[in-house]
């Protein structure tokens, strides 16, 4: 069975928009895998708070029903990825810690060819184009940021062959398969547009131009 490794950012975006049933539907042929770290982020930790009490209950049901499966990432590989990621960019000769263990664990769990489902932007940029991330850091921090190309290349060996998709792509596929219409009612075009905007407004790193691009690309 094919696998897709899920980050909490995408799962949260989908949950906040009542789109978790899309995962249930799509899990018929693909295993949705989460790491223990993600499990703690979406279930264990939020249960201690009181702001979003329904979220962890929804996710726990998906785990209990076998829709979300827990995978174990190799510890050494996780440490390597974490150490490399956090020693690529430098400011004032100090390495910038840009990701945490959770992101590293997700990437460590993914085998070549297995996509990462991730809405948050930083690891995606690091994997797809680390120079873009350097540009962003420099622009937003208003300070000179240097990049260790050697460590970036070493990190890239882990990232190569692991594509990143977002909840928007999941949504687009669900739309093309007619799954969206089972849960939301509306004219097709309007439905897709509304759902993409809903994901964006809940933190999926989509720009308004991305949304317009999707509206053209999707069948």
């Amino acid at each position: 069975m094919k696998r897709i490794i899920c980050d909490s950012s995408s799962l949260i975006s989908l949950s906040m928009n009542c789109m978790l049933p899309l995962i249930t539907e799509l899990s018929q042929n693909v295993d949705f895998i989460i790491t223990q770290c993600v499990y703690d982020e979406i279930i264990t930790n939020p249960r201690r708070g009181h702001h979003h009490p329904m979220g962890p209950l929804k996710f726990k049901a998906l785990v209990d029903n076998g829709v979300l499966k827990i995978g174990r990432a190799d510890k050494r590989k996780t440490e390597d990825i974490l150490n490399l990621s956090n020693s690529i960019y430098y400011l004032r000769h100090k390495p910038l810690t840009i990701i945490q263990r959770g992101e590293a664990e997700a990437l460590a769990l993914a085998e070549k060819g297995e996509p990462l489902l991730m809405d948050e932007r930083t690891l995606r940029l690091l994997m797809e184009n680390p120079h873009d991330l350097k540009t962003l850091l420099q622009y937003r921090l208003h300070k000179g940021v240097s990049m260790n190309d050697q460590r970036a290349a070493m990190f890239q060996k882990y990232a190569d062959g692991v594509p990143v998709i977002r909840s928007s792509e999941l949504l687009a596929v669900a739309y093309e398969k007619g799954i969206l219409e089972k849960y939301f009612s509306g004219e097709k075009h309007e439905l897709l547009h509304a759902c993409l905007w809903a994901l964006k407004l809940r933190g999926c790193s989509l720009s308004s131009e991305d949304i317009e691009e999707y509206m053209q690309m999707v069948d």
Partner: protein
Amino acid sequence: MGVEMKTIRILIDHSIDALKRKDALALRRVSADALSEAAIEGHRELILLALVDYALSKILSKTHYSNLSGDFFTTVEQHFRDARAGEKDDTIMHLEQIEDMVIKLDKEKGNYEANLIEKAKIKKASKLYEQGFSLRRASEMTGADPVEVLSYIGTSKIHEFRGHGKNAERLRIAREVFK
């Protein structure tokens, strides 16, 4: 004295100055500076300073706090002075005292479920994410709830960064995985 403590003391001096002048905008500037330093250095006292300065700026600018007694600000100022005078652990302790004071005040007089410190955490985490740090990193540094941070950043355009678009490729991969 380490470079970091010197920076913190300078920032605390600016906070005291802004507080004495009841200058909300100045407090927000110090908060931004503290966060900027925290992004590089990662010290808890810098994060705390960023949070309390932001929360204090909100207290100064909201009408429902306008009849606050002077004792509140006097006590806050004293904690700032004690934070400045102490070493790292003392600094953290006194900044945490200010944090507790804000939370207590907000519980008595605030209008929303989320208190000012929680809102400050979300705001500052969002800023770190905007700067290029991961959602997890930003949330853990500030103690913010990642769900709240995601909701906040979703409504802001400043987090948009298209870089080199790969949307068509991503969609192709998704179609391939789920065919």
